[in-house]
């Protein structure tokens, strides 16, 4: 579904991503794990067309999307839940969800999808008239995910959904990610919380300062000595 080949990205003179190659198959949960500054967010921003890359190829559903403007990628089904939630804090919960469906024309289906989102996140339903800026961190994360779901993504990319959340809430969020995947959405999950990410993913890539240094089935990486030492704290 997604194939990234030899991607290079620079911030001025800083070479942030070196020849990054990976792929995501339809129906999978794939996780990219790595420490602070490894380049995880940069990869997702490049995929969403928000930062230009110097070289490399990005194919989504067989189509070369490197030159496609950011705002058109949503229509193709490539949707991102960005790092730090980035909900529209002055809009209500309901309006945020509407923004997620901005490009869709099928009004009736959109109305039905509100219920689908509220099924996944009952807490959002109670707060649907509230300004998003007044939600708690966990609720904002749920809103950011709900907003992305409203776009009916084929591939949903999530950047550190566990950031700043309590362990219980992290469990809850990851259970929902699994549910979303079970409902047929492919997931690319970027995480520092390697333990959680590897426990729900099918496959994983390990990113270190702009390089992919390891990849394999998530269960294998959970047993990998280097990964254990560097990311699992065991």
């Amino acid at each position, binding site marked *: 579904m997604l194939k990234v080949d030899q991607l290079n990205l620079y911030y001025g003179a800083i070479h942030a991503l070196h020849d990054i190659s990976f792929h995501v198959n339809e129906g999978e949960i794939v996780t990219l794990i790595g420490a602070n500054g490894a380049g995880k967010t940069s990869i997702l921003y490049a995929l969403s067309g928000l930062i230009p890359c110097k070289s490399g190829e990005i194919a989504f559903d067989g189509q070369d999307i490197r030159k496609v403007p*950011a*705002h*058109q990628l949503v229509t193709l089904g490539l949707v991102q839940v*960005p790092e730090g939630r*980035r909900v*529209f804090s*002055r809009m209500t919960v309901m309006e945020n969800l509407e923004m997620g469906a*901005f490009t869709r024309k099928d009004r009736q289906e959109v109305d039905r999808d509100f219920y689908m989102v509220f099924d996944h996140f009952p807490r959002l339903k109670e707060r649907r008239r509230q300004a998003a*800026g007044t939600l708690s961190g966990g609720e904002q994360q749920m809103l950011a995910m709900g907003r992305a779901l409203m776009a009916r993504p084929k591939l949903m990319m999530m950047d550190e959904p566990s950031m700043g959340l309590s362990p219980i809430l992290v469990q809850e969020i990851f259970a929902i990610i699994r549910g979303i995947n079970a409902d047929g959405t492919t997931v690319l999950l970027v995480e520092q919380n390697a333990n959680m990410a590897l426990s729900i993913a099918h496959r994983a890539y390990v990113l270190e300062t702009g390089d992919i240094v390891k990849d394999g089935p998530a269960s294998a990486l959970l047993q990998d000595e280097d990964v254990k030492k560097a990311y699992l704290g065991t």
Partner: protein
Amino acid sequence: MTLFLNQLINGLHVGSIYALIALGYTMVYGIVRLINFAHGDILMVGAYTAVVLTTMLGLPFPVVVVLVILVCVLFGVLIERIAYKPLRSSPRISSLITAIGVSMLLQNLALLIFTPTPKPYPFSLNIPPLSIGGLQIGFTTVLTIVVSAALMILLQVLVAKSRAGKSMRAVSEDYDAAQLMGINVNTTITFTFAIGCALAGIGSVLYGLAYPTVSPTLGSLPGLKAFIAAVLGGIGIIPGAMLGGLIMGLAESLTKAYISSRLSDAVVYGILIVVLLFKPSGLLGRRTREKV
């Protein structure tokens, strides 16, 4: 009492015009964080457009109004495309200086084409004043207040409910997140400039009816006042611009009537300074950023 009511109505009259212009400053600021110093000069562009269309082509008033609005929109959109868009990711001071440059360019072009000699505004509405109670209210005054109020309500509804309005709000909060929703940021910015300049176009007609002299610097003073109105109300906040405009108009006309016409500008700036001392973000400004 009659004097007071008359001044109140005069204040609402000019205030409505300031508010219409202030909306352009505030909407553009809200979305690109730029003080578009050329915005006042759009008024002048509109006024000369009316002069040219009437004296050279002899078109009737309603047609001229529509064309004035279109020309103002066209200027605003072109200015954004040519002067501001290339600087969008440069330091903010660059676009600020560019805005001042565009303003000077427009004024000097007008000077070159139309000479400094003022021209009369080509229309006046010869409709007898309305008398309500003991008050005589000029038709232009009524028209200005009614049209401005209607436009402001329309704008509020547009921003709150329409698809374009929602994309404007999204872009003004977060460029990247807006793009992740599939919003075309460029289109949204163009649209914002277009709306602001359409309001300025209508403002230029109303201003011309009230102050029927057209000169290259016509836009400077109302532009400055409207900018102050926008800051007073809270720059970037649409109802703030409306409120700020009305307060400016009222303060100006009441000072002229009761204190001294020389002091009206001083009072206006005084209000601004006092408000900003107590509430730096303006009357309706948000005090701090929401938690993220």
